[in-house]
């Protein structure tokens, strides 16, 4: 499973939303109305999922799933 799909699955499971609600190219705020507190939860869930450390400023509600996947891929390579 690629990083983008794993990120999407993680968000769907955490926020209890339908997969089709997570829209391609739109930020989490635009597609799901994610607020800053939910973003803290998303950040913690992604850290657990990928086993890496992610600072809260590195992934934001203004990011799309694709952008978040890129951040994670680059951290995994580093």
């Amino acid at each position, binding site marked *: 499973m690629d990083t983008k799909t794993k990120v999407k699955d993680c968000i769907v499971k955490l*926020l*209890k*939303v339908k997969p089709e609600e997570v829209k391609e190219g739109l930020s989490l705020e635009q597609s799901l109305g994610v607020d800053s*507190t*939910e973003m*803290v*939860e998303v950040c*913690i869930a992604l*850290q657990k999922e990928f086993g890496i450390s992610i600072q809260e400023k590195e992934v934001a509600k203004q990011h799309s799933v694709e952008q978040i996947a890129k951040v994670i891929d680059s951290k995994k390579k580093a």
Partner: protein
Amino acid sequence: MIKKIAITGFGIVAPSGIDKKAFWANIKAGRSAIKKIERYDSSLYPSHIGGQIHDLDAYSHVSSRLLQKIDPFSHMALIASELALKDAGIDVSKENLNNIGIFMGNALGGWLYGETELRDLYIEGREGVSPYMASAWFPAAPQGQVSIYYGIKGYSKTVVSDRASSLMAIGHAIKILVKDKVEFILAGGMEAPLSPYGLLCCNTNGELSKNNEHPEEAYKPFDKARDGFVVGEGAGIMILESEDRAKKRGKKAFAYITGYGTTCDGVDRIKSDPGGKQLARAIRIALDDAGYRPEDIDYISLDGAATFEGDVSEVAAIKEVFGKDAKDIPVSAPKTMFGNLLGASGAVDVLVTLLAMEHSLIPPTLNLKEIDPECLGLNYCRDKAKEHSIRRAIVISRGRGGINAVLALEKG
């Protein structure tokens, strides 16, 4: 009070039923909803019985996404608010959101959420704690959630005053409405005390019945064999608006709130003053506020703490205010059927009284077999509901440390 405040809709979420039809059917029949608490192993608690709600989700329009961010006490408040608005025929989206208020009360806050996250803190560390912990457990959380859900932005307040919280919230709300600060108010209370830690706190307080073998017979205020009250969970929310506004929109009031009184005993950190002097004064203030004479009252909804000091002082206060009429006015403690909802109890007692007025039926006090000699002299309605026309009533709600609150009502 300068003008009467109309109650034009209400929502009940209680162990005896969610929404008024189911709830009233059980109250009318004198059916107890007190059972052993089995949602976790509570068997080692000195008191492990209570009034529980099992089917919250079936009535809820609240999304799963929101539910994981809130405690059950906020969930109950959201359901009761929705039922109340529907009952009042109000579509919030068509109202001026700046002119709607929310006045609610509870005693404990949302302990299920709080204790679960504290457990996670000690097991998983800092990152195991939900960021919603900060906003889920605290007593004003239900007010906030109802405000967010409907976009309500007017003058609002949460009252924490032990078991008198919701009646005091209603008392504050009517003062605000009399001053025309808002158009209408969602007022009432909610409580979810049956979580493992919440129930433990209620137990250590020492005022709960230990009659675990006979849950339905355990809550027996004013009885010689009483040994404390039984706790319950639930919410009661009502829509309050001026008489003029209700008339303008063609909505008949279920009842009017005509008076409110509150006092403090100033005697003990837990127990009521056995003499009941300050409760008597609170009753007089409420009657004076409403312009009633004691003989105008057709029904008294009792606090019914089922503790020696609580019961004896309540009876003493009623005898002092109502004199020779005390033996004739029907009185009862319907919470013996569903438990003492702590901070929500006063609001739910008001709603039971509205239903009693509507159906001309006094709801019973269960389990009152042999009246404590020190509590004699009142016209207790026992075991079965009794037909009786109620035009004017008072509701008594009291909290630990000698908090007394009394509301006067008149049928709409």
